[in-house]
């Protein structure tokens, strides 16, 4: 890995579609934060929703002169507002779960690598077990066990994702521990905590950091998929995924906008994160312009 991770971060130069995806991502985050101010409607407030204007096509003018630019869904909620509020849920769930998963995974990886023996064997057995299964399957098992709800979804995503950080970090930490500077530190008989926090961790963390954007994208997609399958966030506070899912039954009857626009918003968000993540990765480690 690069020795001067911060240096590289500073030096990277904007190229091609990267500023665009960064700008897009920034816009998403701003819009999500400002949703209660800029959204024409509060989709959680039943009093603001007009059931009689359900499934209105994009551009339809509502009763009070408000134009539904992207139409309304089957319950009469304004699609623009649903997207804005759904974005908040999607981002909240994915950011929280990715952050916790990264901390758990990195800690587990470093501890497993440093202590070796049965600790390592135990952690890696669990990691192996999980990573040998497709994420969606692990998520399904977790959510079926945990039950529905936003906190459960977050927990399920953490369970799915920590293993990836764990394996990557352990591999790097093992190779760092093989280097002689850690032998030198061991000879100085520094306290274990100090060795882990000051020597092993800072040198093993970079690959995990580059994983974060990718995993964030996965988390958003996973939350959306679970919500789509009816196992995710409750329908009264829809995320982007459950909004798309709610539109599925209307798709067949031609009311495409209910699932099309939230889906596009979702795709744009995940793509922006992935492009930014890919850029970070290749800047940090020019050798791994892969996956």
């Amino acid at each position: 890995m690069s020795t001067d991770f911060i240096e590289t971060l500073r030096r990277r130069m904007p190229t091609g579609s990267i500023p665009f995806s960064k700008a897009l991502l920034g816009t998403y985050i701003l819009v999500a934060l400002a949703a209660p101010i800029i959204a024409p409607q509060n989709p959680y407030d039943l009093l603001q929703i007009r059931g009689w204007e359900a499934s209105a096509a994009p551009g339809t003018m509502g009763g009070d002169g408000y134009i539904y630019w992207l139409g309304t869904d089957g319950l009469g909620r304004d699609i623009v507002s649903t997207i804005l509020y759904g974005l908040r849920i999607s981002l909240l769930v994915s950011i929280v779960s990715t952050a916790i998963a990264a901390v758990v995974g990195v800690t587990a990886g470093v501890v497993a690598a440093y202590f070796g023996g049965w600790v390592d064997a135990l952690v890696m057995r669990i990691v192996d077990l999980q990573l040998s299964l497709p994420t969606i399957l692990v998520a399904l098992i977790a959510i079926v066990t945990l039950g529905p709800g936003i906190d459960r979804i977050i927990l399920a995503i953490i369970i799915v994702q920590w293993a990836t950080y764990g394996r990557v970090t352990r591999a790097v930490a093992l190779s760092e521990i093989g280097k002689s500077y850690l032998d030198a530190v061991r000879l100085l008989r520094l306290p274990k905590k100090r060795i882990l926090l000051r020597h092993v961790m800072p040198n093993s963390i970079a690959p995990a950091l580059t994983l974060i954007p990718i995993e964030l994208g996965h988390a958003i997609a996973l939350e959306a998929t679970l919500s789509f399958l009816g196992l995710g966030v409750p329908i009264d506070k829809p995320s982007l995924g459950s909004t798309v899912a709610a539109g599925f039954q209307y798709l067949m009857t031609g009311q495409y906008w209910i699932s099309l626009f939230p889906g596009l918003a979702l795709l744009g968000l995940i793509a922006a994160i992935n492009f930014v993540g890919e850029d970070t990765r290749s800047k940090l480690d020019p050798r791994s312009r892969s996956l």
Partner: protein
Amino acid sequence: MIKDITQKPLLELKKLTISYRSRSQTRPVLRNVDLSLHRGEILGLIGESGAGKSTVGNAIIGLLAPEFVQTSGSILFEGRALEGMDEQERDALRSRRIAAIFQDHTMSLDPLMSIGAQLTEAIRAACPDLSGKQTRGRAIELLTRVGIESPSERYHSYPHQLSGGQRQRVVIAIALSGTPDIIVADEPTSALDATIQKQILQLLRELVAETGVSIILVTHDMGVISEIADTVVVMRDGNVVEHGSTATLLDHPVEPYTRDLLAAVPRLRISSGKRTDPTFAVVNNASADDEEPAKRAAILVVSGVTKAFGRTSFGWSRKPRKPALQDISLELKPGAITGIVGESGSGKSTIGRIIAGLETACEGEIVIDGTRVDVASRRQPGGMLGRVQMIFQDPAMSLNPRLPIGDTLAESVRFGSAPSTDARLAISVIMDRLGLPMTFLTRYPHQLSGGQKQRVCIARALLAKPRIIVADEPTSALDVSVQAEIVELLGQAVSQEGISMLFISHDLALVQALCSSIYIFQNGSVVDGGSPEFIFGRSTNAYTRCLIDARPERFTI
């Protein structure tokens, strides 16, 4: 070998300039390089890291990375400029008449293809007219020629089943398959042990005599040059410093840089007697004012240490397998430097790590300064008493890349075995003694050169106030000129700080210059031991003799 100087050169470089181009900058890596190579000549291209010698080799083979651009000058093959040819012609010429041997024999062969198949495809590319049977016959012939035993069996082997020396022989066989005019050999023996290196160099010499092929030998090792090159080109920072016939250049170097380079090469003395080598004279002052080290009780006694193959648990192997150690016994006197010499895989590093407490052994006893150490315990209640510090081979990996030098050194003081009231004072004293400016304290390891990093490592070890320092090949990753400085510092450290040192090395000359007693390791056992006078003068041990004979004669006095 006598060459016909009037003969036209086979290959000429004329004012060759090559630049490295990146997005932000263009920087020349070779400047106006001139050289000429005649038929049947072995041309040595020598320089320290960054001299541009490999770039010359790659330019000739035509395998420069795309960032390297030939900005001026030309490469002439039989009088014709390579730049003037069309691409097809140039490729054909390069593949038929110029062959290459790379340094890393582990990477030069496709791991998924048998060596026979790799050899025959090279023969087919060079001589498409041969029948299948003829091709195979030629392959066996080549394998025999490069000294592969039972070639028809080895034909079906995969690269990972061969030893390093055998792999490099196969690489040479492949290079020979097209009967080339020139072989560009980039550090062909640097990854090999001295005894194997000697054999490979001999093979190259024979091939030149038999086939009249010319060789461009890129190396950092003056010993290799002295053994086999007819002419030498000394390079530094992309420039040719000096060139001439090997004998003249080695005996009467004109340029100061060449002189320094030659002076820095450690010389082995096989005539017994007092050590008066001026390069390392300082070392001999060690404990001269004290009583003779031999009469004092040993500070380190190792007896009967045995280690089996690397431990695995649940099928997870934690470390690559290390060779077994069998019944190792040795001792180290206070204030002395004891050498451990062996080739790769001899277990010399393993015993050093066991003494430091970084690895465990199955049985045996280690007594450090009167305290018995449990060699088998993973928890190392005694092994890490803080009385042993190490200096490692690769300075690039010996310092935490994310800590400033000052923090690294401060850790040594704070957590070392001797408490220090004033850490900064201790650090500044040591830094001064090792010739490190105080401004380094805020620098990061990557901002330092290899030699500077190794000095910091020495400082770190000394600051912890150890009784013993284990130095594991501390100079083998460094350029030869830096190597001399580091060795001198180590010698000084022992005499001034009142410590003892175990010096592990593959280099006989270094060990001879530095150590007052020497152990020879082979395959995990001590096969010979004694004073340098005994080892290099009177020892009759076959392996010791073999190691001494593998040294280049030019640097043996």
